[in-house]
């Protein structure tokens, strides 16, 4: 477990600037809360909150899709994997790192959201449930991207991830609504996007649990693929 934690913390440290940039969006929400009339502009606040929340899903794809590529390109991965670190532990560290990076963001957004939206009448408990949904969506999206990045470059990995996350959403619109739960990033994002002051929504847990289970499945799949990859070969 120790190498996994070390790799995860190191990943967050290496991604500190993108995380910082992300947190600036949360800061924007906090500024809006400080300098606007919360009661009168509550719909605007909720709109910004939803937008800022959904950005992090895209960022988690970016984090997951580029992690292995960057490490291989800089050859830093060699010094790490020359230690007593198995490939699956390395992958677990990256999954945990993406989760921690997303969790930092979700926590900051949760604090800011429960303060600003809470004052405008949105239930604080629902803000935290939405943050859990967001974190689960980020975990799954990041892990899917990581899986593709074990054998594709970040550009193609992002494309493949978008397809895997988007196709069930498309199928739910055209074939049957149940398809959205095949890869539940879409229903989790919809839970966030559809919440409103008049109808904040309840705590619907199944997509959240499904996202956690699928994260584990994709983690196992990525670990299996990564164990077969020649990591010392140039990635360009």
């Amino acid at each position, binding site marked *: 477990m*120790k190498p996994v934690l070390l790799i995860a913390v190191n990943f967050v440290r290496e991604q500190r600037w993108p995380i910082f940039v992300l947190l600036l969006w949360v800061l924007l929400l906090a500024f809006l809360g400080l300098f606007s009339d919360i009661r009168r502009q509550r719909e605007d606040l909720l709109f910004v909150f939803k937008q800022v929340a959904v950005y992090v899903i895209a960022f988690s794809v970016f984090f997951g899709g580029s992690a292995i590529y960057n490490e291989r390109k800089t*050859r*830093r991965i060699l*010094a790490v994997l*020359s230690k*007593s*670190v198995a490939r699956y532990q390395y992958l677990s560290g990256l999954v945990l790192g993406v989760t921690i990076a997303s969790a930092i963001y979700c926590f900051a957004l949760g604090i800011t959201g429960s303060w600003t939206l809470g004052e405008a009448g949105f239930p604080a408990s629902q803000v935290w449930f939405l943050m859990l949904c967001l974190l689960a969506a980020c975990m799954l999206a990041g892990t899917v991207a990581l899986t593709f990045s074990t054998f594709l470059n970040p550009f193609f990995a992002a494309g493949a991830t978008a397809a895997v996350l988007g196709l069930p959403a498309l199928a739910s619109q055209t074939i049957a609504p149940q398809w959205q739960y095949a890869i539940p990033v879409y229903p989790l994002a919809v839970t966030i996007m559809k919440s409103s002051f008049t109808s904040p929504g309840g705590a619907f847990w199944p997509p959240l649990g499904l996202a956690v289970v699928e994260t584990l499945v994709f983690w196992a799949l990525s670990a299996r693929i990564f164990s077969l990859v020649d990591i010392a070969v140039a990635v360009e």
Partner: protein
Amino acid sequence: MATVLEFESVTKEYRSFPSRRRLRALDSFTLRVEAGEIFGFLGPNGAGKSTAIHLAMGFMRATSGGGHMLGKPFGDAHARRRVGFLAENVALYHRRSERLVRFYGALNGMGGTHLAKRAREVLTGVGLQDQAKRNVGKFSRGMLQRAGLAQALVNDPELLILDEPTSALDPLARVTVREILLKAREAGKTIFLSSHLLSEVELVCDRVAVLHRGRLVRLGRTEDLLQSTEKTEIVARGIATSAFTGAVAQDGVVSFSVPARTQRAVLERVWNLGGEVVSVNPVRRSLEEIFLEVTSDRESSVGEGRQ
């Protein structure tokens, strides 16, 4: 003596994309490295040295064949706990050098005050004790290589695998690295050293292997390889330099080299000319001569059927 590193008929092919053309980097490569020796691993660029090392470390998988490192199959994470590795073109995270060494030590299961003490020790050992608080990102290439060596040494490894450890170092730092290697051998460690600096290899290595185009073309004890069996140097007095081709007079004696197979006839000729033989020794060659010899005369024969 126990075998520490063992390649068993390893072949590694790379496939180019999108043509799927095959490039054979290692071809039925077999080698055994024994415990307690410093083993020199030589070869021109593209010979397959780094590929062999990466296979041993588990960074890639062999197309066929396999091997063992410290008694475990290549790629075993537990075996790597007892191994120190320095890659060619070392790349490390940008953080303070002492913290960096501690990070790599912690990845190997070390911790607490022992790790902190060991990190300081190895940084002192590679001459970076004054740079412990400095960010590695600001290091020169030579300093970076020394930091890389420190992270390789932090777990006090039984087997040290070094890929071009002295390539970016100044002469003074090279001497330091040489001393570290010799000290490690005295402590019973095994060192697998890939290098282009043949003079360094000649100075420290007990055995040497030369790899060319993925094949092992020379293997032996360094001393044995340097002793030529093909030429003999004869030193004599009381003869004219004109009597033998290439003879040189110095300090009252004449010295010249002859093919070993003609040695007896030449000695008789010296005596017939009234001369006195002072010494007869096999010619000592440099590793560079051997390297050039084995890597040039196999260009055509070994190259066939590689791609």
